[in-house]
């Protein structure tokens, strides 16, 4: 079984600052994927970034990057130069290789303050 834990229910940061969202997970498997999804208010969920567990290099997508610590089972998301459009719920999720079942955390509500 997989579990995903997000310990920060809410966060806020000034526009243009950097913010880091935390996520820990638990699995006994060695092959899996980790994701960060963004769910803006009243809009659909979209994929922000993905990390394959077998890759040591941290994934980056423009202003979004992850800090993947496999031994610690930690997967944090860093948003640089935050923008007002980054205001959303952010969900950390995992999926086992060969199993298409996404397991989500409880989410972090991020507010970017003008």
């Amino acid at each position: 079984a997989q579990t995903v834990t997000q310990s920060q229910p809410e966060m806020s940061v000034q526009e243009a600052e950097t913010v880091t969202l935390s996520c820990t997970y638990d699995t006994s498997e060695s092959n899996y994927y980790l994701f960060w999804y963004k769910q803006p208010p009243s809009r659909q969920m979209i994929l922000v970034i993905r990390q394959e567990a077998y890759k040591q290099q941290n994934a980056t997508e423009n202003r979004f990057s992850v800090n993947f610590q496999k031994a610690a089972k930690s997967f944090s998301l860093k948003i640089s130069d935050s923008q007002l459009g980054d205001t959303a719920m952010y969900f950390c999720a995992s999926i086992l290789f060969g199993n298409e079942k996404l397991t989500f955390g409880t989410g972090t509500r991020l507010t970017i303050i003008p």
Partner: protein
Amino acid sequence: EAGVAQSPRYKIIEKRQSVAFWCNPISGHATLYWYQQILGQGPKLLIQFQNNGVVDDSQLPKDRFSAERLKGVDSTLKIQPAKLEDSAVYLCASSYLAISAENEQFFGPGTRLTVL
């Protein structure tokens, strides 16, 4: 490319009534998922289809929930009879293939159900 479509966007019913949700996945996507997202929680998978066959429905409350995907395209999720605890957002998602976990799931806007 059109995204995942869902209807209705909002539904209010009284307990013990029935309700149905509709989903149209992205064209060509073989895999379709229904999730339940209760306020303050992350989405939870209810059922997964591969074409028109069920892959995983282990978390679907089968005494009141049912789902079908006729012809491997559109899908409907039904609740009969509804309970107060069914109040949630019901999300539909689709992906091109389910063979590999790296296939991205694309989500629809969801249907917000309120049971009074």
